[in-house]
């Protein structure tokens, strides 16, 4: 890596971030830490998702499927053989998986790699279609993963799911992985590969005419996204300690979609901001379900109102502010310095 102003600033920013993590893990309430853990995992998931949806412009709806794969693989690897034996009450687990056991880091990485490989295989059929068709086909993939995990009982334990996973995930795991994901993805975006991805997004036929193997470029984005979504799934699995086919529903994809749109499609720094806004916002929205007194007026808590308000806010945002926070722009040091010097961005 070159030692120049921007890289030094980036390293400093990362150090400050970890300092915040260190401070937070000691001073924030367990609940706040918990929500920050969610935020960081979601940041990793949505950064990957934005690479394929925002940067490469391939509107796909598969992340819940990828997250599920990563979660299952990691969970299977970190459970002890004894735990698995007691859990698989319908049919015993296939022996070669039942006896596999390893520590968290290799399990996460294998989870990511397996997911990436599935993404790679999936890419060939799905990228033969474009636009809305791609959306619906990838949506079907997420659904298929759920159906498969319900039925491959000797691997996934069917609807009973995998329970009592060891809780390795903590704020440090989340923070380090989120930073790795952001660095890797932003570096891909800021390279010839990223340019090719944007070219595919802006005009796929013209990109082909430039000699770009667009299938390959889409695959790079897809597989990278799949890897980080798989790792994120592993982190989530160990965080919530129990996974079953119903955990990773379309709602997860939908939340990620909201994040990348709020942040601005194609903008990674926007995604980071939006992750914080959306994850914390939806926690803060719990207020609307609590009974409250406003100026002496008693409003009883209406269960379910949170989701109603959430969806209304989303619709309003799409109508009035659909560019998101950052648009397609990216926060960068050059941009700041130019801003300070008053130059054209």
């Amino acid at each position: 890596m070159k030692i120049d102003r921007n890289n030094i600033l980036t390293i400093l920013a990362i150090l400050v971030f970890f300092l915040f993590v260190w401070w937070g893990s000691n001073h924030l309430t367990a609940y706040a830490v918990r929500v920050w853990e969610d935020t960081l995992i979601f940041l990793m998931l949505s950064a990957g998702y934005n690479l394929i949806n925002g940067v490469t412009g391939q509107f796909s709806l598969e992340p819940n499927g990828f997250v599920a794969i990563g979660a299952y693989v990691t969970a299977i690897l970190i459970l002890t053989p004894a735990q698995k034996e007691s859990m698989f009450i319908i049919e015993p687990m296939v022996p070669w998986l039942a006896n596999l056991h390893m520590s968290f880091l290799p399990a996460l990485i294998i989870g990511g790699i397996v997911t990436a490989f599935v993404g790679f295989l999936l890419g060939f059929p799905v990228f033969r279609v474009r636009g809305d068709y791609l959306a619906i086909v990838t949506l079907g993939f997420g659904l298929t993963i759920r159906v498969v995990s319900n039925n491959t009982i000797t691997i996934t334990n069917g609807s009973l799911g995998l329970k009592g996973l060891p809780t390795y995930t903590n704020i440090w795991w989340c923070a380090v992985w989120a930073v790795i994901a952001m660095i890797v993805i932003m570096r891909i975006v800021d390279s010839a590969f990223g340019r090719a991805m944007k070219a595919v997004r802006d005009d796929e036929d013209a990109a082909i005419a430039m000699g770009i193997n667009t299938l390959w470029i889409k695959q790079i984005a897809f597989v990278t996204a799949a890897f980080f979504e798989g790792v994120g799934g592993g982190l989530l699995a160990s965080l919530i300690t129990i996974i079953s086919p119903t955990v990773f529903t379309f709602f997860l994809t939908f939340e990620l979609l909201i994040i990348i749109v709020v942040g601005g499609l194609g903008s990674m720094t926007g995604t980071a901001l939006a992750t914080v806004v959306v994850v914390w916002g939806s926690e803060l929205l719990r207020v609307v379900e609590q009974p409250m007194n406003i100026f002496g007026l008693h409003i009883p808590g209406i269960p379910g109102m949170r989701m109603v308000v959430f969806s209304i806010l989303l619709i309003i945002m799409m109508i009035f502010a659909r560019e998101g926070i950052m648009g397609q722009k990216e926060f960068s040091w050059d941009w700041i310095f130019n801003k300070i010097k008053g130059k054209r961005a």
Partner: protein
Amino acid sequence: MSEVILKCDKLTMRFGGLTAVRDFSIEIKEHMIFGLIGPNGAGKTTAFNMITGNLTPTEGKIHFYGQDITGLKPYKIVSLGMARTFQNIRLFSNLSVLGNVLTGFHHKLKYNLIDAILRTPRFYKYENEMKEAGMALLESVRLADKADFKASELPYGERRKVEIARALATGPKLLLLDEPAAGMNPQETLDLMYFIREIKDKFNLTVFLIEHDMKFVMNLCETIAVLDHGVKIAEGKPEEIRTNPDVIKAYLGDINA
């Protein structure tokens, strides 16, 4: 004197029951400017798309420098040395002018994904090399001062030039231009004509273009083929085409009317 670089042999393209192009044969020699004319819907763009690999001909063969390229993927054909522009200018609107040009280098990229992620010396070396080459190319088409502009911010005429520069970045031997003068006024068209001649010499190109503007084609091209309803009805030097009775009947009408 010069070698045949593109040879189309009885190309036929059918869409369902419709035959868009029938038995289309041409030969293009090195360093010539070849024009293909005909009304909308005559099959010109279809012929183009077959040559660039966007469509696979139902029948017939295409040879490029003697190599059979029929049915090859478009990006492979580009790497063999053939580049194109589009009728309605298709730039990457959210990339800068330089970024647009750099995409043309992608097919001969010299670093891999790992280099990009780890920011290896190789990454910096070739990334800088590419940027320099891109700037040099923009310099040579007199667009260097616009390198940082978004492609969508440029006026029409310059966008066309950027599109051509982008195609040049792929390092073509044969450049295919789809109605380059569409939407330009006579003054701009004239500029474009000089521009095409200039880059042809500078980059040692062969040019194959589709056009409507008769004056443009007649002045620029050495050989012209005329397509009508998917069939080539004439081929020859501009003055031959101008006086060819078939062409007059099917296409030109009384040109001085």
